[in-house]
């Protein structure tokens, strides 16, 4: 009985540490994730910029890569949706409440 209790305690402590670890890792990568998404956004914008009036590469290049761009397109549209509150988005990522 007592042994069981100790075991579950140990497991509980382990969980706490694991969650701590995950949270810290998450926090440590938050900025890099933002950077990456920004880059992916730029990549999509560059390829499909003609829709927004940005000089774009030869159309066929965009058509050629379009099949593999699902993620980038999603980020692009997410960015476009959040664009009217960019500041909040930024503060959220950096961690200023």
């Amino acid at each position, binding site marked *: 009985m007592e042994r069981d209790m100790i075991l579950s305690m140990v497991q509980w402590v382990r969980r706490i540490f694991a969650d701590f670890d995950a949270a810290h890792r998450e926090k*440590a990568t938050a900025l890099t994730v933002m*950077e990456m998404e920004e880059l992916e956004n730029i990549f999509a914008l560059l390829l499909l910029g003609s829709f927004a009036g940005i000089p774009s590469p*030869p159309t066929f*290049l965009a058509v050629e890569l379009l099949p*593999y761009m699902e993620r980038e397109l999603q980020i692009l549209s997410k960015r476009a949706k959040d664009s009217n509150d960019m500041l909040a988005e930024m503060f959220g990522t950096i961690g200023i409440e």
Partner: protein
Amino acid sequence: MKILFFTGKGGVGKSTISAASAWQLYRKYRVLIVSLDPAHNLGDVFGVVLNHKKQRFTDSLYLKEVNLQKLCREYLQREISVLTHSYRYLQTINLDTYFSVLKYSPGIEEYALLTSIEETLRSERDFDYIVFDTPPTGLTLRFLALPWITITWIDRLIKIRRDILEKRHTIYRIRGILDDTETILSYDENDDDILKRLKTLKGNYQALSSVIQGKDCGIVLVYNPDTLSLKESKRLVDGLRELKLPLRLLINNKIQKKYQTMADHVDSVMQSFAPAVPIQRVAFSEGLLDGQNSSLYNIEETILSPFEMK
């Protein structure tokens, strides 16, 4: 295998001269002549009907007219099939109607042209000469510039893509995978479809670019002894130089005896634009005027003598 592109202003006689050259070459070599001009008249010149397929004219002379519209359509069709394959949920939507608009987007036509040249060069290895009759200056310069422009763009895109993958790798290393439902974003250069595609494309364009800049490829510039054609030819010479494409022969076509001085003047100016490029003169042929196609074969000058195979 030698590759010749006949370029020049519209109406200077590119098709006639390229056809006549092919006609003169075929006696000694195996020749394929390809018309890239959307306003096809290769068939008219030879007096046969060409259905956008390679057609045998004599044992060593083959003719082909490229169907641009069909090429565009095929190209988009291919893309649609890849697209529907990767975005499963799109299968329910009829994408064809959307993509039918794409064929009007700028660049697709040049791309289709370039693809057809590439395909021809790749598949027709049995010929000694491949002669291309090109569309008028503007379109020709654009599609000849395409490999270079594309490579520049691809380089930029590859750089950004590498940055993205590097970031992904960093994130993966620090964070790992938190639970099973998460999909891992590809971070390795060999796993990323986009980077792989970009690299393949770059390889293709570099190969093509090295072929058309190489020593077995030549651009032949056809012009007439008049000022308008002279001006446009200068632009073409400049454009070719910028693209590092080898101009190998100038042809002054439709020279008439009574305008001899004009012809001399135009030739001397052309020579100053493009020093050391041989000039070949072709006299105005009365016979061609009334559409007797047989006269084509009687062009007296040996057009390609400066460019014969060694």
